[in-house]
């Protein structure tokens, strides 16, 4: 093989590989956006999800993306952990997934399925998994991730809720580790469409 072809091939490999690996990393490194807690549209949209017929208490919305491994891990946690009795919870599932839906309902969770576009448009949410907590007055007290570290095994949903309820003035922020849901965010983080 002529040496120039070898060099050209190697250079092409080097460039494509570097860019490709770079795009893969972006998805892991990029700080996933969280909605603003005082977003009125988000507040009203979440309020609408609150089940009717019950006294208003603390309300948690789990935004989970069926194509996102992190979201699936959170779902597994929700299904296997003991949930507080006085907590109302809804799974806002992005994209339909019958098996997940069935499991969620079997575990006692209300499930609302939305499209990525609707999630972004109605809830201003572009990434998952994300937990949003509303107090009895429907004020958003928390909007963030489930773990302190990326892919962390310690899912702190219960602990976060307990802290919010016990310490009224306390604010908690956990980073959002997971997947881009909106097409806009996905096109930024994965321009080569290697991940999404």
């Amino acid at each position: 093989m002529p040496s120039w072809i070898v060099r050209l091939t190697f250079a092409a490999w080097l460039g494509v590989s570097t860019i490709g690996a770079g795009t893969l990393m972006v998805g892991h490194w990029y700080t996933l956006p969280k909605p603003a807690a005082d977003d009125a549209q988000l507040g009203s949209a979440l309020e609408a999800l609150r089940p009717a017929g019950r006294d208003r208490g603390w309300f948690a919305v789990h935004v989970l993306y069926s194509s996102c491994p992190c979201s699936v891990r959170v779902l597994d946690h929700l299904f296997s952990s003991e949930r507080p009795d006085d907590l109302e919870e809804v799974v806002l599932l992005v994209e339909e997934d019958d098996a997940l839906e069935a499991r969620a309902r079997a575990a006692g969770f209300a499930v609302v399925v939305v499209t990525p576009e609707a999630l972004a448009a109605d809830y201003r949410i572009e990434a998952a998994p994300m937990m949003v907590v509303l107090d009895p007055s429907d004020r958003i007290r928390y909007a963030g991730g489930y773990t302190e570290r990326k892919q962390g095994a310690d899912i702190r949903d219960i602990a976060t809720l307990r802290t919010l309820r016990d310490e009224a003035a306390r604010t908690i922020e956990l980073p959002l580790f997971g997947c881009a849901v909106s097409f806009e965010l996905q096109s930024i983080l994965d321009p080569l469409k290697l991940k999404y």
Partner: protein
Amino acid sequence: MWSRIAAYVRLPSEVTDFERQYLARMNRIGLWFFVAHLPVFVLVAFFNDTGPLSAVALTSFVLVGPVLAYKTFKSPRLVSVSYGVTAMLMGGLLVHFGQGPVQIEMHFYFFALLAMLAMFGNPMVIVTAAVTVALHHLLLWLYLPTSVFNYDAPIWVVAIHAAFVVLESVATCFIARSFFDNVIGLEKIVQSRTAALDKRNQDMRVLLDNVQQGFLTLDRSGALAAERSAAVSRWFGGDDAADLGDLVEAKAPAFAENFRVAWEQVEEDLLPVECNLDLAPSRIEFEDRTLQVDYQPMSSDASTDDWSGVLVVMSDITSQLEHERLESEQREVLYILDRILKDKAGFLEFFEEAKRQIQLIVSDEIEQMPLLKRVIHTLKGNAAVFGIHRISDRCHAIEEALKEEGGRPSAELRESLAQAWDRLCESLDVLLGGEESSKIEVDDDQFKNVLREVLENAPREQIAESMVAWKLEPTVRRLERLASQVHRIGARLDKQNIAVEVDGHGLRQDAEAWAPFWSSYIHLLRNAVDHGLESIEERRALGKEGSGHIRLETVMEGDEFIVRLTDDGRGIDWTRVAEKATRLGLPTEDRDDLVRALFHDGLSTRDDVTSTSGRGVGLAAVHEACEAVGGQIDVDSKIGAGTTFVCRFPSSALAVKHPEVFLAA
């Protein structure tokens, strides 16, 4: 500083065979290592639900680079460098496919691979990997500035993250370079050292090829080292000789034999090696060359006295010896000149007598060996008296050869004597002016006496006899000449300050007629100093004063002319004379027998022979010379009291011959 860093990171351009082989092996292992990532990554993707097919595709794509490099790159180092890039890309894939609880831990792959890259022994591989990562981060930062600040991490967290990578890269570069310099580059180091050694050996070879001395070394077993100076090969050849004896055997067999004997002592190692080497022969004589041989023990460990071999240094001293010989001969000539100025007649007489003796010896005319030995011995003694060592030394060499080998003097030794004499004559011709010996010296008294007789009209016969007396020599002059030799012989024998008393009693004699007698008489004198007088220590122990006393006199006693030599030495051991005489088969019945035995050829009371005496030749020569002028020799000696030799001649022996006889002569 940057240039030093660059020089440290960039390896020398030369790739040794060892490095090429090593990198070929490591690159092959590295390639298989990366290929093995494919199934692993598929499994990782499968268990983390991150897409096994995607893992197959992406990992295979990343493998294109190293496979391409391995198959096509000529430089093994470039292949390794491509592995630096590959390692970081694989790390990226692993982090991607390892999304799950251990995703953070997957980042350790980068640090592990950075360290593993050190095995290529090339800092450039690590730098390339680190640059790949840095470039990666830079591109991402340009694309999405917040991406590098992982999940809103502050700048110092990013700095710490980068610092660890830099720290490990620097450390790994150091390890890789050290690995290259000390292991992979070992061959180069060896080559460099070998080249330096070759250069040194070459310099040493040039030195050995040009030095005029012979240098060679022997190990403890006496084996010759291959390296030696060219002079050794030039002199002896024998490049395949096993030891020094073999080397010189053909040219100097005597040296070879003596050296082997000496080396046996060295190998026995009973004495310090220096002492044993002192016994080794120090001169090699072959062809017309003389070599001085010096031995120096060598030690490979300066901290111990143990020797590992011997350095042999051969110096050609032929020119030096010739120069010394010429200097010696020059000194001899000066000494002779001094003697001529002091006693010209005496020297001329010796010269004429020596010329005759030389002729007899060189022509090998004398058939009777005892007579020949006497001539040689007499010539030796008189030459020594006049300080002509070139003659006395050669006479001594002939005597030694006759003693050891028997037979007659070899032509070589006779030729050597003849040449020495010829060189002496050439020098003396200038001093003596050719016909000097035929001149007559007249002192003022003698001249006035004859003048007076002429003016007083004395009888012609009386005037003629007075003039004949001009040719006569006072015997005291002879005695004084001999006396001066006593001190010289004494000095040589460590018997300084011998008191010599001379008394001629106003007698005169025909110098020419008595020349052979006085020529031989020196033997009595040498015997008296050497045998008769004790050493100073012995004399002191015996209660004797001084270094000894010798009296020389000529005297008329009755109708006899007496020449007497008396010493106060140890006296003659007649018992020993009797023993020696018995061994020679001579009668020892009475004193006369013993006296006769004493003057017999070959009898000496000494067991050892010196350059001065001890051969039993001298007294026989005197005895014969005495009888030749009509005399008899007798001896009177007492143990511890001294010895007196008396030569008796009839008064007629001193009588002045008729003037006509001189005219006829």
